[in-house]
């Protein structure tokens, strides 16, 4: 009896140790990003930031306006200097900006010259489930204005109400509002940390070592991979320029292709040897060149992107599955493949396939279980980028 009580207590304690801004029972997915060395437009605490309306790619009905307003309040409470709403609304209306998932160079230039804004915060609601247990996933990135549109910071957090049940289920969260507040607090805190100069990952090094470890578990390594032997990103040299394209979506989850590209973007930006092109710029290039990738990216299309964006590598792939569990039972499942094309050499230099379930290698008390697909995929993608770039 005593033994059972001790085990239960330790299980409760272990669950309670999971940070609020984590992934719900698994290691934190928050991946604060530092800009590449020498990246233009590095900004600090006094910088003026415009917050784009939140883009809802959760596939569920959610009040994007409410999330946007709550995020602004959270940022304002942390004394982050924000662009006032009326001029921003007028600017977006005048420029007929409908897509708020990216920033183009033209728009970035106009933000700088017309509003005097230093950076734009692009926020995406990746997961929203109000039913018990609630789930939420918010990702954000800070993009400098002006012509360079460099990604300065990126972060994401995925939470589930049953992620940290604790002893006797006291840690269960059934109110989606509480979960939303936690997620927004995590994002705002991370951005504030970046602006204050507190970096989670070392700047200018070869590989980011979040918390001294690789930031993923071995079970999330790709199942099959090919890596061109002579490809190596050398720290200290000019970073290679990479465009991440939306993945071909073969899953039942709406926007899974965009979500997957977003995961890769957040992980790639962590590396000082890589400069990731802002997705808004990539999107405009695809639209202007009327480039439709049926079944994937072909070499002539990669050539075109290389010419338009000046990129060295293009990252793309396919998503087979991207499922979040419904209710308390079930487990997330994700399956995807990724390939990296060297634009100059017209060759695939990386190819890998990954699949995982949230309860992989979980044998006791749900220890090590991941409760959201977003959190799990973050680790899987981190494992892929780590293997490719290290």
């Amino acid at each position, binding site marked *: 009896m005593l033994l059972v009580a001790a085990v239960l207590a330790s299980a409760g304690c272990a669950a309670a140790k999971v940070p609020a801004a984590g992934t719900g029972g698994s290691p934190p997915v928050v991946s604060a990003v530092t800009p590449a060395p020498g990246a233009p437009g590095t900004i600090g605490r006094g910088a003026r930031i415009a917050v784009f309306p939140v883009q809802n790619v959760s596939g569920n009905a959610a009040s994007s306006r409410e999330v946007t307003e709550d995020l602004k309040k959270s940022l304002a409470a942390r004394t982050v200097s924000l662009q006032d709403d009326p001029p921003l609304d007028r600017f977006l209306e005048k420029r007929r900006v409908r897509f708020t998932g990216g920033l183009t160079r033209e728009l970035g230039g106009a933000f700088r010259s017309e509003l005097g804004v230093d950076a734009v915060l692009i926020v995406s609601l990746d997961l929203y489930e109000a039913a018990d247990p609630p789930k939420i996933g918010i990702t954000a990135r800070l993009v400098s204005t002006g012509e360079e549109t460099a990604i300065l910071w990126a972060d994401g957090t995925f939470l589930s109400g049953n992620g940290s049940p604790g002893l006797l289920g006291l840690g269960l969260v059934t109110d989606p509002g509480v979960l939303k507040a936690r997620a927004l607090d995590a994002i705002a805190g991370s951005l504030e940390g970046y602006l204050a100069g507190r970096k989670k990952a070392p700047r200018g090094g070869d590989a980011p070592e979040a918390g001294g470890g690789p930031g993923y578990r071995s079970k999330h390594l790709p199942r*099959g*991979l*090919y890596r061109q032997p002579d490809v190596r990103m050398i720290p200290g040299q000019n970073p290679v320029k990479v465009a991440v394209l939306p993945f071909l979506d073969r899953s039942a989850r709406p926007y899974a292709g965009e979500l997957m590209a977003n995961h890769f973007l957040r992980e790639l930006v962590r590396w000082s040897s890589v400069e990731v092109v802002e997705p808004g710029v990539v999107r405009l290039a695809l639209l202007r060149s009327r480039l439709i990738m049926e079944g994937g*990216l*072909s070499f002539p299309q990669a050539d075109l992107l290389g010419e338009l964006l000046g990129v060295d590598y293009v990252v793309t792939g*396919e998503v*087979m599955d991207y499922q979040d569990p419904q209710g308390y039972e079930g487990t997330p499942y994700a399956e995807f493949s990724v390939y990296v094309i060297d634009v100059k050499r017209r060759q695939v230099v990386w*190819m890998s396939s990954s699949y995982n379930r949230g309860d992989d290698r979980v044998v006791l008390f749900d220890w090590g279980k991941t409760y959201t697909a977003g959190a799990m995929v973050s680790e899987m993608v981190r494992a892929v980028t780590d293997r490719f770039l290290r």
Partner: protein
Amino acid sequence: MTHRPSFCDAAGKTMRKSGIILLALAVLTGCASTRGGEVTYHDSNMDFGSLQSVAVMPFANLTPNTNAAERVRDVFITMLQATGAVYVLPPGEVGRGISRTSLATPAAPTPEEVMAFSKIVKADAVISGVVREYGEVRSGTTSSNVISVSLRMMEARTGKVVWSASSTRGGITTVDRLFGGGGKPINAVTEEAVKDLLDKLFAK
């Protein structure tokens, strides 16, 4: 004259019994296995070492699972590329070739189509395939995952089939029937089948 049973007779009877039991076991095991009837064809005149780039066409799907062909193709492409023996064209480049040659049935191209397609994408060989089974099978209360795939490789220069093989993995085994169990996950079974096909491709 009466025949008296000798030690040799007794030993012979025991051996016959053992033989019958072994035969029965072999037959039973053979029935339970899903690997029967698999054949591999290798063109003896083909120099497989000369192949440098290979295009993998979309597979035909004969299963009720709508994504089965894409899933198997995806795993096959990655694992084939991972061998490092050949360079596999990215799916988008294959798609461009299919579009340029206006292939009506990319899963089963004619020799002429293979030649025209290979010229456009600069491939030395083209692999096409059929996914015959993919997913869960049930027998009574037991269920398991099974996959069955057939592949063939066509030489780019002539459009001739130079290699063909099939593989079936997973399914309900005697052990599953006796002790239950859900078998392996479909991804693991797919990887096994693809590995088997690659072993057959690179076999001497």
